[in-house]
Every structure is written in C-alpha cells, then in structure tokens.
C-alpha cells in the first residue's frame, strides 16, 4: 500500500480523571523523516507516543499506521516498529550482546546482532553487563534494541535525557544514521536544540494539545522575531551610541537582516580604528516560539 505518512493521528484523546493528558491531538508522521514532538514535561508527549506504541489505550481518536486505520497496535504493527522508551531498563545481569540477542529473538525478522553492535559502537562493551554501563552506553544499547528488527518506524522517547553533552552528541549521530537508513523517526524531547538539530518537522505540544507545527524555520518565522547581535569594542564606545549598552559595556541591537547590520558595525569600527570584541549573534529559536505561544519557557 502506498502511503506518504507512516502514521496519522486524528483527534487523539486520553484523559486520566481530571487530567487531560492528550486532548485532541492530530499529527502526521511523514515516511522517512524525523518528526519531533517538543514540549515541556507533562505536556502529553509521552502519553501520545505510548498510545501510538500500544502501551496505552486512547479514549477516542483515530490512528492510521502505514495508511490503514487500526483499532489497536497489534503484533503485526509491533513487528514493524522499534521503540526506545524514556527510561529503558533491561535485565541488569545480561551482557550487551545477550540483551540485543534476546530482543532479536522476539521478532520474526531481525538484523545481525554483531553488525548492530558495531553500528552503535558497542564492540568494546559487548561482553559487559548492562549494570556496568554508563548512561550513554545504556541508551545506545536501548537504541540498538529498538532497531534490531529493522523497523520502518522508530520511536525515541526523550532519548538523551540525563546524558552528558558528549554522550548526547554521540546519540544524535546514531539517530542521524537512522535517518540516512531511511527510517521514519518519531522523537519526543524537551530539548529544543535536539529538535532543531535532528528533526524535519516539529510538533510543539502543551497541556495535551498541539500549539504549533512545521519546520523549524517556518515556526520561527511565525513569531516575526528579530535576531540579536551583541558586541563590545576596545575603546571610544560612544561611536556606537545608537545601540543599547548594558552596564558591562556590551552593545545590543536587534535586526531582521544580520548580514547588513554586521557590515555596518564592522565598517564603523574600521573607520574609527576600533576592534570589535565578544561578538555574538542570537537567532530566534524554538524556545522563543514556545515563549511567544505560551508565555512560559520550555523548561519551566
């Protein structure tokens, strides 16, 4: 069956007593792309993906997998999806190899365990027990288990939460590899830089509802926010009196044309024989989009 969206969700609802965990979410997960569901903790991201993974039952709404409407996520669908849960734990006394092999045995079709171990840079830890791995290594094992069945869709629920920057970068590289392999990736995260870096399309979720969707640049454009340039000069700072200056002597200017403004600043400095120091440019990002839409910061 031909389909462009691996998953489509219409008006999905999941309520817990007085809490509307998911309140009418609709989304389309495009085949072969990385779709991020971004939102603060408790926004409903995990409930949404867990419903799509078959861990929770929706109160109402329609779910389409591979172009077909489904009543429940059955074994047939589970054969085609791979999941990395938010807090994955495995049997702690098994080795990395044994863990991945166990998961390989749960599917009708699976990839070669040794190849997957190499792909996720786990050769050195192949014989190490799970309990002896670092957080980043455990997440790589979780990712290896998620793709051992060569799935069409990979769900990654906050895969880098709790990891140090280096481990996070390593995992991003692994996720990029999945994208190159043509996998459809559904990523939930509350790190806006992660969503910006990895995703082709973003859904911003808050209070169980989608409040914005689109590509990163499209979303940023919607808030009409200017870029901010900060800099300082070595002396004669009165030359730049047209710009705002804070008590540390840093000048700040907002612009919608960065290139033009930078040329102006450097030209003025050159004419007055000044040196521009500590130059930084801050473009509007998803954090600003979220702030603009909700009045709160993403990590509040």
């Amino acid at each position, binding site marked *: 069956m031909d389909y462009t969206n691996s998953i489509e969700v219409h008006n999905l609802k999941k309520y817990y007593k007085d809490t509307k965990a998911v309140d009418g979410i609709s989304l389309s997960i495009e085949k072969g792309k990385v779709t991020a569901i971004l939102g603060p903790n408790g926004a409903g991201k995990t409930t949404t993906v867990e419903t799509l993974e078959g861990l*929770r039952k929706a109160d109402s709404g329609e779910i389409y997998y591979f172009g077909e409407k489904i009543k429940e996520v059955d074994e047939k669908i589970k054969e085609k999806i791979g999941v990395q*849960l938010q807090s994955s734990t495995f049997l702690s006394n098994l080795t990395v190899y044994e863990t991945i092999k166990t998961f390989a*045995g749960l599917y009708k079709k699976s990839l070669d365990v040794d190849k997957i171990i190499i792909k996720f840079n786990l050769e050195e830890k192949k014989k190490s027990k799970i309990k002896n791995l670092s957080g980043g290594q455990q997440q790589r094992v979780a990712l290896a288990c998620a793709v051992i069945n060569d799935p069409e869709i990979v769900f990654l629920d906050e895969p880098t939460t709790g990891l140090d920057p280096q481990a996070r970068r390593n995992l991003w590289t692994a996720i990029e590899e999945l994208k190159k392999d043509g996998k459809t990736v559904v990523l939930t995260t509350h790190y806006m830089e992660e969503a910006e870096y990895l995703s082709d399309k973003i859904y911003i979720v808050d209070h169980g509802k989608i409040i914005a969707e689109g590509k990163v640049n499209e979303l940023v454009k919607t808030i009409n926010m200017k870029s901010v340039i900060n800099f300082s000069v070595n002396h004669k700072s009165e030359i730049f009196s047209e710009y705002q200056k804070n008590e540390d002597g840093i000048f700040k200017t907002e612009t919608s044309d960065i290139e033009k403004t930078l040329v102006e600043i450097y030209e003025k400095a050159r004419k007055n024989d000044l040196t521009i120091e500590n130059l930084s440019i801050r473009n509007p990002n998803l954090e600003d989009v979220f702030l603009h839409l909700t009045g709160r910061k993403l990590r509040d």
Partner: protein
Amino acid sequence: MKIKELFTAYTKDSFRQFETVFWAIVFPSLFFIFFVSIFENAFNQENDFNLKAGIYYEKPLTGINKMTFESVFNAEGIPFHFSEYTDKEKGIEDVKKKDIDIFIVFPENFDRLNLKNFDRLNLKFISDKLNVNIDNLEIYTNYTTDSQYAYKIFKSITDEINIAIKNKGELKENFRSEYIGTQEKEFRYRDYLFPSILLMGILTISFFNIPIGMAENIEKGIIKRFSVTPLRGSDFFMGFMLSNLLVVVLSIIVLYFEGYLLKIEPIVYSFKFLSFLFYSIIVCVSFGLLIASFFKKINTAAVFGQIAYQMTIFLSGFYFDTKATPWIIRWYVYFNPVTYMVDGMRNIINGNSVGLQNLIVPAIWLVVSLTVFSFSFKRVMHYEK
C-alpha cells in the same frame, strides 16, 4: 521460540545474581547439613550414652546368678561400659576421682541368690533350711549427673532381675504371642527434616524470586519494554516462570544429591513421593503468583514475602511439632497449607499414605491463588492500568 529467548535471558540473569544462587540453592543445602549434624547428634545422644561402671566380686558368681549378670553386662543397648576390678579400694577411689560413674561390689554371699530359684520350684523348705540371706550389693556413686543416672539405671536393671527371678517358672510355656499395630520406623532426624528443606527451597523461590522478580519487571519498566515488541503477555509469563521453575528443580536436585549422600530414606525417590513433591511445587509457586497479584513494588513485595515466608516456615511443623502451640497460633498452623504438604511428605517417608487433608487444603490454596492471579494477570502483565 520467544518463550525460549526469555527463558534463557531470565535464567542467565537469575543465575548471575548471588541472592538467587545462595538463598535458593546453597542455603537450603547448607541448612540441611547443619541441622542434620547438630540435631541428629542430639537425638542420637541417647544411643551413645555411655556410662562407666566398675564391678568388684568379693567372690566370683556361679550358676544362674553368673549367667544372669553376665548377660546383663554383655547385653546390647545397655548404656554401661563395665570393667571388672580386682581391688575394691581402687574402684572406690576411681568413683571419687570421677574416672568411673558407678562402682558395684557383689558381696561374698551374693551367689546364694541361686538358691532363691528353689522358691519358684516350690522347694521352699530347702531355702528355709539353708537360711538364704544375702548381703546387700554395695553401690558407690559420686555427685555427678552421669553418676546419678548410672545409679538409677542400674537400680532399674536390678529391679528387672528381681522380677525375673520371682517370676521364673510361673509362666506357662504354651503361651501365644503376636505383634499388633504398626511397627514404628526408627526415627531419623534427617528423614524428618528432608521434606522441610525441600519445601524451604521451593518457598524461597515462590515467596521471593517470583513476586520480587515480577515487581522488579514492573518497577524497572522491563515488562513495559517487552510490551512494545510482538511478545505476548502469556509468552513473557511462561519464560519468566520457567526460569524460576528451573531454579526450583536445581534446588531440589542439589538437595536430593545431598540426601543421597546422607542416606535418606529411599522412599523419597518413589513415584508417590515425587508426585506429591511436584504437587507441592505447583501449590507453592501459586503463592508467589498470589503475592505478585497484590504487590507491584519491589520493597513491599520483599517485606510481605519475608513476613509470609517466616510465618509459613515456622508455623508449619518444619522444624518442630506445632500441635503443642497455643490455640491462636494453631489456627494459623491449620490454615497454613505448607503444614499439610510437609506432613504429607513425612507420611510417605514413614510408610503411611497421604491423608485427604494433605491434598485438599493445599488444593484450596492453589485454586484461590490461581483464580486471584488470573483475574489480575492483565493488570500485572500490562503497563496500562
């Protein structure tokens, strides 16, 4: 195939945990050895009770007298080691020094006791004529407990001899004797303990490994992780349970091997005993599932498991007879199905048949446990509550 994968994974995980190997396999076998070596010796002390007795004859015994006392001194099962003294003073000195527990001096005219037998033959005139008066036996003891025991035991022996002498000739020869009732087997603590230790090994797994393992699978999100694979809940359950049953089987094999070395009553290898053991395993495992139905957290499952385990073990007649316990406790004993399981096994070992209650009470528990678990199975196995 999926069950095999999970069975393999859980088995490896279990056997790499010190707790599983120690508590389910090593501890019961150590416990068995310790208890047998400590308490069986205590039970056997009566047989090894060996008192030292010294004998001094002022004049050697003859005739029936000699035969009677020699048979006593050489009899098996008499808790005395007799040694004859040639010096009376030396014997008295040895009692004082506690080298011997009792010193018995047979007076010079003690041999006249032979003439007493004429009384039994209605030849009283002869004994009267001969004026059969016999000096007392002189018995020397010290103040040790063993010495006092020795005195009491020797006194009872002489009483027996007195009765025997008095009755001699009075019993007719054409009597008929027969044994009635069942012949009790010799009590051996190892045979008494063996069923308890078997059940202890099984209960360790059913009260700890199963509910705590299940709670761990829930709390750590392992079941949740498996739920997003094509694995069915029933496959997970089978894989998990089979790995636990393997631990049970290994625990039993180790105990049987130990029992073989300790020369346990061979009936434990009989189909009858093994069938009842299998039945007990099923019942005990169902307890684990019952606990797992109620406790989803590792800590609560561990605490409840520990309390239930201790109560079940100690109030089921594992190590001592619970019939003499206060009535409140006895109610728990009667309520406790393990009481009937251990009793059933002991019945078989003693050559008796398993009572109906040994089957019915555990069966009630089995049905209740499995019913409760089957109702809560979905809740236990599935992430969505």
